């Protein structure tokens, strides 16, 4: 790999052991994928988790003198101030959460604690080279915004944040961004929920290809939330950091451009029936519930408005948590939705992920969510979920069962 003089100084330790460690990671990645050089990145997003390994890496860099030169926005861990008033955690779990916040502050991160930076706070433009981790964010910035990011891990994105560079390979090249797989969609997805089911269905079948969606029955333009849910689930059930939608996303005005003149390596068609079957396959059957959990990925302000409309004047009978971004929550506070939602018994919390120790008191019970991704990660921790669209989640919350 060719390194510039300054990159060589970072690599040989002249810029301190933290930067050296970050460079070792980037050089290793570059070599592994035959990158010939590094390129600058203009934005980074780090999918911190509040897990020990990830926090250790940030401590290693910052204690070795590294500071963010391209300050990364950060994923959520959990809101310790709010959630310790409701739920028990061990001193060790609380300490790890506080350590995580402290170490990312010291490295110079932008502490957004939000998993949807691409909607607000860290929005790349077309063609921008970036390093975005977070399985829902990477496909959005690539597919919807036309920025260029590989499927970064939290640690490689942080390495780019402290060095300002990433190895030039993979999705940074136009030819690797061409569609390879055609998805003909007969189904007519409406809510973000339907788009999520579509993403899960297709992701499981395309693996690591670049799917190109051709919709037969699209009703108007998909919302940002719809596109976000599509990518989140594509990149959970499969490894899909980039997709295209003909006539909608910027690198797919038509089939010739989307596939670069090549024939797709495979194709697939999707009907409403397929999506109904997908829901039935993913979801638990139903019964008494102990939790409704929304916001994986974080609910946007538009989704909070929709929730407010559906909850209007009703009272929920089980714990009902909506995970959202700090700015969407503030907008809802100012505009009145927050007070009405909380009057129904539901609660909003910022800065928080579904996969954190603060939620363990619900484990063993049955939850309801509108997110297959939420179901997938919580199941590993012993909480099964029924998956339903938002309106049905609200009904379940009122009745306490589904």
């Amino acid at each position: 790999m060719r390194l510039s003089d300054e990159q060589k100084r970072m690599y040989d330790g002249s810029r301190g052991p933290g930067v050296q460690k970050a460079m070792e990671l980037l050089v290793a990645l570059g070599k592994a994928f035959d990158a010939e050089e590094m390129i600058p990145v203009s934005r980074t997003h780090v999918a911190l988790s509040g897990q020990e390994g990830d926090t250790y890496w940030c401590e290693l860099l910052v204690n070795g003198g590294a500071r963010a030169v391209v300050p990364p926005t950060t994923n959520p861990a959990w809101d310790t101030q709010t959630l310790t008033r409701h739920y028990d955690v061990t001193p060790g779990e609380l300490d790890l959460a506080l350590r995580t916040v402290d170490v990312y502050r010291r490295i110079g991160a932008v502490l957004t604690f939000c998993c949807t930076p691409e909607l607000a706070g860290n929005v790349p433009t077309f063609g921008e080279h970036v390093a975005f981790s977070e399985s829902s964010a990477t496909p959005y910035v690539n597919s919807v915004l036309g920025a260029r990011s590989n499927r970064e891990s939290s640690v490689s994105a942080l390495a780019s944040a402290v060095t300002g560079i990433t190895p030039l390979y993979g999705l940074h090249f136009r030819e690797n961004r061409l569609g390879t797989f055609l998805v003909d969609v007969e189904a007519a997805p409406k809510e973000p929920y339907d788009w999520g089911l579509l993403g899960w269905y297709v992701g499981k079948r395309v693996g690591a290809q670049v799917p190109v969606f051709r919709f037969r029955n699209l009703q108007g333009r998909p919302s940002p939330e719809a596109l976000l849910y599509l990518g989140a689930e594509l990149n959970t059930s499969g490894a899909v950091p980039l997709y295209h939608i003909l006539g909608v996303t910027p690198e797919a005005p038509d089939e010739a451009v989307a596939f670069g003149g090549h024939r797709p390596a495979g194709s697939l068609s999707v009907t409403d029936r397929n999506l109904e079957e997908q829901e039935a396959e993913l979801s638990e059957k139903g019964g008494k519930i102990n939790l409704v959990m929304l916001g994986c990925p974080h609910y946007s302000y538009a989704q909070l408005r929709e929730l407010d409309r559906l909850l209007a004047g009703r009272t929920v009978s089980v714990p009902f948590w909506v995970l959202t971004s700090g700015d969407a929550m503030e907008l809802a506070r100012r505009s009145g939705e927050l007070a009405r939602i909380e009057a129904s018994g539901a609660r909003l919390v910022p800065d928080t992920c579904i996969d954190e120790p603060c939620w363990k008191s619900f484990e063993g019970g049955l939850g309801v969510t509108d997110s297959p991704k939420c179901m997938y990660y919580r199941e590993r921790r012993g909480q099964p979920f029924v998956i339903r669209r938002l309106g049905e989640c609200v009904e379940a919350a009122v009745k306490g069962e589904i």
Partner: protein
Amino acid sequence: MEYEEKRYRCRSIVKGSGEGEAIVSREAMCFYLCDPETGTVIEKNHPLQGRSIAGKVLVLQSGKGSSVVQVDGFYQLSVKETLPAAIVVRETEPVLVSSAVVVGEPMVDRVEADPFEIIRDGDWVRVDGEAQEILVRRPRV
């Protein structure tokens, strides 16, 4: 006992060297699904389920699992000193590379012959990252 020794060229991805008994995983691994205390693979239905990778030279098909989870898996093994002595990878994957760098786990790939053909469970293997070479030793039959 007499031994036969063979040397193979490889490529160093994460610098460092290590040696030990070989353990071969023909399937990808998520290191989060290893018991950090013993290095034992606990993933259900994995070919290495119930066997420890600690201190051995792991010959591995590839990595799998979400980015953060894989990193934490390597980290927990590192803290308990139950990581493999070195890893020989067949199909390189970015999150696996990232995770190995974080804990300084020696890793090589692009062995000049298929590692599944030249290394068997129980062989003694030395992975030399500096020389970009693997030495495989087994009793002569």
